[in-house]
């Protein structure tokens, strides 16, 4: 079963609960995924249902490790993707759990070697002016509003843009620390 574009809630109950589907890419999807990277070796379609975040994290973490990131960096990249997907689910789709999200994973190759990875996340949610996608002031301690900060802190490049027809596209890159990517420090958090 493929997600029905433009028909929220369509399909049988069983269909609505099918979590992840290696779906046939139709012409309009291919157009939506056109910009970058076309040669993505891994494409995941997931419904906007938070119960499947764990699957996306596992996939991204495994891909990052295979690309050469150590366990800690791979976990950070998986966290950034989790936060990006959460933002689509909570704010883009306003909690609707039956909407499509596409994610493409690819390594970044330079001079015949892998130097990092790129993740592209696309949705059909409401469009937002990229300049308005900001973190809250970290000094303002309150629940929520950390997702964008976490994404920007972990990833080397973060690009939000409206898709041509509808929805948003988020392109994230992280280079290997040995290739100029960030290497977030580990601090001792314990008070005593």
């Amino acid at each position, binding site marked *: 079963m493929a997600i029905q574009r433009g028909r929220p809630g369509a399909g049988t109950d069983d269909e609505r609960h099918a979590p992840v589907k290696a779906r046939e890419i139709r012409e309009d999807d291919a157009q939506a995924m056109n910009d970058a990277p076309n040669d993505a070796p891994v494409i995941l379609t997931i419904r906007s249902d*938070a*119960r499947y*975040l*764990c699957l996306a*994290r596992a996939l991204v973490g495994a891909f990052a490790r295979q690309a050469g990131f150590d366990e*800690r960096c791979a*976990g*950070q990249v998986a*966290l950034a993707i*989790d*936060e990006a997907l*959460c933002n689509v*689910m*909570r704010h883009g789709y306003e909690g609707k759990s039956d909407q499509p999200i596409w994610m493409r994973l690819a390594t970044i190759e330079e001079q015949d070697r892998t130097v990092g990875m790129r993740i592209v996340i696309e949705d059909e949610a409401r469009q937002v002016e990229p300049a308005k996608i900001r973190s809250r002031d*970290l000094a303002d*301690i*309150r*629940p*929520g509003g*950390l*997702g964008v*900060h*976490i994404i920007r*802190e*972990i990833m080397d490049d973060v690009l939000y843009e409206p898709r041509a027809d509808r929805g948003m596209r988020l392109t994230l890159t992280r280079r290997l620390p040995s290739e100029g990517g960030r290497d*977030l*420090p*580990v*601090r001792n*958090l*314990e*008070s*005593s």
Partner: protein
Amino acid sequence: MNERDSIEVSTEQRGDALIVTPTGDIDLHRSPAFRARLKDFASSKPKRLVVDLSRVPYMDSSGVATLVEAMQIARRQSTELVLCGLQDKVRSIFEIARLDMVFKIVPDADTASKA
């Protein structure tokens, strides 16, 4: 909320401290259940509420938001909120969110109950 959306949380009273130990990932899917449980525990107004995260391998910002809210509730009622047992991935989000100066974080439940 159905059973699959719930979260296993064990509790132990140790002196003045109520130690709550959730098990499993705390992400957008499970944080609403965790939030509800934490609010229940806080409503008993323990002198010290210890959240032992040693059985939580992963937490995202929705889980952190739940803890920030619990901290705010705790402060209003003079309950001390202490976190302990942070695993690497959980530690990482506290580092990135720069919340280490906001929460009292100690190594383990023994330390937390005596802190």
